[in-house]
């Protein structure tokens, strides 16, 4: 069985304060690209991604990936949050008083907030978000988007890459937009669309990419 590369040559750089939304059709390799950046793809040559020494990466996976047999407090303590900072951190993401809950006792949205708290707990230089607003009902998705926006505003130096299907997320959060298309996937970017928050323009672009692949 010959292995098809998922990702083609991608040359780009990410700077402090970059807010990148990564768009593209399903199955094109958006999550794979996040994994490559986070250093989780074993087959991928490690030297191909140059990370600044001591770079801290917070990764919000599609699933919460909290340890289901540990409470939120224990989950946060495991990534090095001091005991007295657990409650304030949870309060920041709207989960005050939930420290002793197990992840599966929370709703999907709450568990995702808890996972977001864990991302922020390590004071990341780069925040990776994989479809952070997917499978939430519209008001909750909106509330979480506002929360992420607020948290980002409070951390101007933190870089972010957010995988999404929704042009509105890109309009609200991004100052750069990456599109993945082609086979293997190649990267395009369009700074102009992002800086204007031009949701309609981003939607059009996304549609044209999807129709090309399908």
């Amino acid at each position, binding site marked *: 069985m010959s292995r098809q590369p998922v990702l083609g040559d991608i040359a780009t750089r990410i700077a402090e304060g970059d807010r990148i939304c990564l768009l593209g059709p399903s199955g094109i390799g958006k999550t794979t690209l996040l994994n490559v950046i986070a250093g*989780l793809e074993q087959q991928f040559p490690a030297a191909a991604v140059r990370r600044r020494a001591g770079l801290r990466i917070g*990764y919000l*996976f599609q699933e919460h990936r909290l*340890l289901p*047999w540990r409470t939120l407090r*224990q989950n946060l303590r*495991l990534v090095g949050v001091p005991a007295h900072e657990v409650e304030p951190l949870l309060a920041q993401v709207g989960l005050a008083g939930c420290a002793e*809950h197990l992840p*599966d*006792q929370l709703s999907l949205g709450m568990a995702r907030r808890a996972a977001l708290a864990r991302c922020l707990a390590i004071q990341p230089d780069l925040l990776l978000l994989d479809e952070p607003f997917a499978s939430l009902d519209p008001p909750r998705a909106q509330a979480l988007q506002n929360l992420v926006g607020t948290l980002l505003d409070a951390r101007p130096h933190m870089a972010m890459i957010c995988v999404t299907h929704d042009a509105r997320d890109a309009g609200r959060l991004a100052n750069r937009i990456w599109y993945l298309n082609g086979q293997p996937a190649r990267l395009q970017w369009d700074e102009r669309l992002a800086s204007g928050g031009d949701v309609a323009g981003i939607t059009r672009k996304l549609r044209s990419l999807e129709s090309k692949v399908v």
Partner: protein
Amino acid sequence: MKTAPWACWIALPAALLIWGLVAALLDSALLPSPLAVLQTLWGEVRAGELQHHLGVTLRRVMLSFALAMALGTLLGVWMGRAPLVNALLDPLLVLFLNLPALVTIILLYVWVGLVEAAAVLAVVINKVPNVAVTVREGARSLDNRLEQMAEVYHFTRWQRLAHVWTPQLFPYLMAATRGGLALIWKIVLVVELLGRSDGIGFQLHMAFQVFDVASILAYSLAFIAVVQVIELAVLQPLERRASRWRTAGVRHA
């Protein structure tokens, strides 16, 4: 489906009753009545024999169980995580799985001598492959998504072991413990029968020489009772404690 609470109190008393009736009917020393067995049991307790031999057997069981679990778990995790190690060792594992316990015991007594180390080692060699196979299944089913999470958040080796792996391996370790104890009890008796001068197996051997069925039944009953106590007092509470997070309930869903 909920069954009636009295249902489990039928079969055992019935068996006891039938035993008593048949024993009274036959009136033979080869099938003593339940009462005679109890009297023998009490006599052995008063003489201090039962406690001594039961203690010796328990010590052998615990020692070989601890060694077999430790070695089997290490081997199982290693084989489950490293395909090359698995490919190398799997044929050997199959060989040892199918090696009759009796053969191991005899060979070790012949090679090492009729000593305690040979006895314990024979039990361990018999048990390690079973533990390894069970734990290997667990190690193969470790959730890769949590591995990635642990990688991203730079979990230490110890944190991975204690907080990521052990909870996932726990059901497999429990299965290995259950199956392990059941098997080890039995092998230890054979080991004692063949080459030791104390323990329940040795006592059974002595009783067999003179067809003392009352003693055989008395020691067996005492033995079964101890196994049950360990099941109820140690294994079940441990299992409940470790699976609490599963039953905590989905509050919001």
